[in-house]
């Protein structure tokens, strides 16, 4: 194209002249240079903030998706047909109720400035939680993004416990229990591990710095252990273990588990709190652990029962996701595979053997998967954590020091045990006291008639699958 080329040459010549004249005449003062530099820096920071904020808002949405519909479907499929709506409603109700609590005071209790055990009331009604970042927690995103991201964790944690009391707890009692549990167990635990000055905080001056990247202790150990306490306190479902109570739809559970797997990328990779290479590392570790655990659980079943079940495969994936949660931002892909594989086999053994030996009725295996898998993951994090992935520990001179046992930091194992033990004790004591309180005031369990009829009808006046022809 001769015309186009001519035009290009002309344009080039003009540009050249302009550039030379700029070089010759354009003597800028130092003050101008500084101003321009500052402006550039600001623009770079804004660009980074935009990128991080985009990822963190996406992550927050992904974590909410884990509760609804992820967990609701996963649990809903595992119960009997007559309890499917009640089970789903337990997840959904927490999406609403915990959100209200979080806005009013829970965020402040968990993340506001306070003592080693619980935050204060400085951020009551989200006072001071706005567009400006909180430099201690996440320096590149609005504090409000951080707040809403953390909210999604506060929602799913009590929802996980529902797996233990499914099919027999009064809906009103479930609400009362989870509200109190959220305030007196979750908020302190989140503060201890992630809050400024929390007892177990690894990067903000904790007394026992526990490595917990995305909530192995805060979310899974607390919910799983509380689940065991609930299962023991409420007792067995009517007819358990004599009557068969197989899942009414493994199809629903399958969809739920796959949504959980995807949502978990927001949970773990989002816990990098930035769209950083650390987020990538956590994303990869998360995925590898889930895959290895699915292979582990289904494989163990194949060897023992002669058949690999679909429910085994998806339960394994969830167990792997649980176990990698505290480790996600501290380990490389190969240890993630190992953690996943161990978790898949271990949780299978807990659910298929140990539960039967002790005879407790953890309806949907919240303890076997989240309590056991979470505890295992927290311990293994202390083994496999490496400063190459996440240089979290520094000496007085600011040099990076070893993270985990294999890197030479044997002392970290003690901290991990302290973290796990704290979560266990808080969960057991807190859950027992709250259950007792709810039991003497409104009663925790539905009547036998209501249980036999099913909680969908007795608690909500609805049926999940309405049979009558409608047209």
């Amino acid at each position, binding site marked *: 194209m001769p015309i186009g080329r001519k035009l290009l040459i002309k344009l080039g010549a003009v540009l050249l002249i302009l550039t030379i004249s700029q070089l010759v005449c354009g003597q800028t003062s130092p003050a101008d240079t500084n101003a321009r530099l500052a402006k550039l820096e600001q623009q770079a920071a804004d660009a980074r903030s935009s990128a991080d904020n985009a990822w963190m808002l996406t992550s927050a949405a992904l974590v909410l998706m884990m509760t609804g519909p992820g967990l609701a479907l996963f649990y809903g499929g595992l119960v009997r047909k007559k309890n499917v709506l009640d089970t789903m409603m337990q997840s959904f109700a927490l999406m609403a109720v915990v959100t209200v609590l979080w806005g009013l005071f829970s965020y402040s209790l968990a993340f506001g400035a306070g003592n080693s055990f619980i935050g204060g009331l400085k951020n009551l009604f989200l006072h001071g939680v706005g567009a400006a970042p909180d430099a201690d927690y996440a320096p590149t995103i609005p504090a409000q993004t951080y707040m809403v991201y953390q909210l999604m964790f506060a929602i799913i944690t009590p929802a996980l416990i529902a797996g233990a009391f499914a099919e027999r707890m009064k809906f009103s009692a479930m609400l009362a229990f989870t509200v109190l549990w959220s305030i007196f167990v979750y908020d302190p635990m989140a503060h201890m591990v992630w809050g400024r000055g929390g007892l177990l905080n690894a990067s903000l001056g904790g007394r026992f710095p526990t490595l917990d990247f995305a909530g192995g202790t805060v979310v899974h150990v607390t919910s799983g252990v509380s689940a065991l306490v609930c299962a023991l306190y409420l007792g067995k479902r009517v007819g358990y273990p004599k009557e068969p109570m197989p899942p009414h739809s493994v199809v629903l559970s399958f969809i739920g588990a796959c949504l959980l797997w995807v949502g978990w990328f927001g949970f773990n990779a989002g816990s990098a709190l930035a769209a950083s290479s650390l987020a990538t590392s956590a994303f990869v570790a998360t995925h590898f652990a889930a895959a290895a655990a699915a292979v582990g659980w289904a494989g163990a079943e194949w060897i023992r029962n002669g058949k690999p*079940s679909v429910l085994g495969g998806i339960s394994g994936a969830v167990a792997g996701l649980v176990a990698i949660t505290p480790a996600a931002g501290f380990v490389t892909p190969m240890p993630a595979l190992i953690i996943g594989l161990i978790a898949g086999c271990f949780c299978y053994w807990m*659910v*298929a053997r140990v539960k039967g030996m002790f005879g407790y009725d953890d309806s949907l295996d919240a303890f076997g998967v989240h309590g056991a898998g979470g505890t295992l993951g927290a311990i293994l994090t202390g083994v496999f954590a490496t400063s190459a992935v996440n240089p979290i520990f520094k000496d007085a001179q600011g040099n990076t020091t070893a993270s985990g046992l294999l890197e030479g930091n044997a002392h970290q194992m003690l901290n991990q045990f302290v973290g796990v033990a704290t979560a266990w004790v808080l969960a057991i004591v807190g859950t027992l006291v709250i259950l007792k309180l709810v039991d003497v005031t409104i009663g925790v369990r539905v009547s036998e008639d209501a249980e036999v009829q099913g909680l969908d009808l007795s608690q909500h006046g609805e049926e999940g699958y309405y049979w009558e022809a409608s047209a």
Partner: protein
Amino acid sequence: MTKVEAVIQNSKLDAVKTALHEIGVEGMTVIEVRGHGRQKGHTEVYRGREYSVDLIPKTKLEMVLPDTLVDKAVQAILTAARTGKIGDGKIFLSRVDEAIRIRNDERGEGAL
């Protein structure tokens, strides 16, 4: 008039339906049922817990036929539904006193 009830394997429904249409059967009611005869059930394992399932899903066909058609219908079902293994199902025949078409109150074989 005779009522023919046949409990058959689910997988044989299409073959039986086709065979019945071919000999001139015009209407039938098909129901998904569960039950067992001498056939043993199977076990299912969910998270390590075994459940024995002894009520097996089957398909039940019901039709009321003019007596002239009954033998042919029975033969058609036998041929189409048989695999020779336990669990092929059963056919029951019983007398029917009256048939009434709701649309126009027609009675007897004409209502079939």
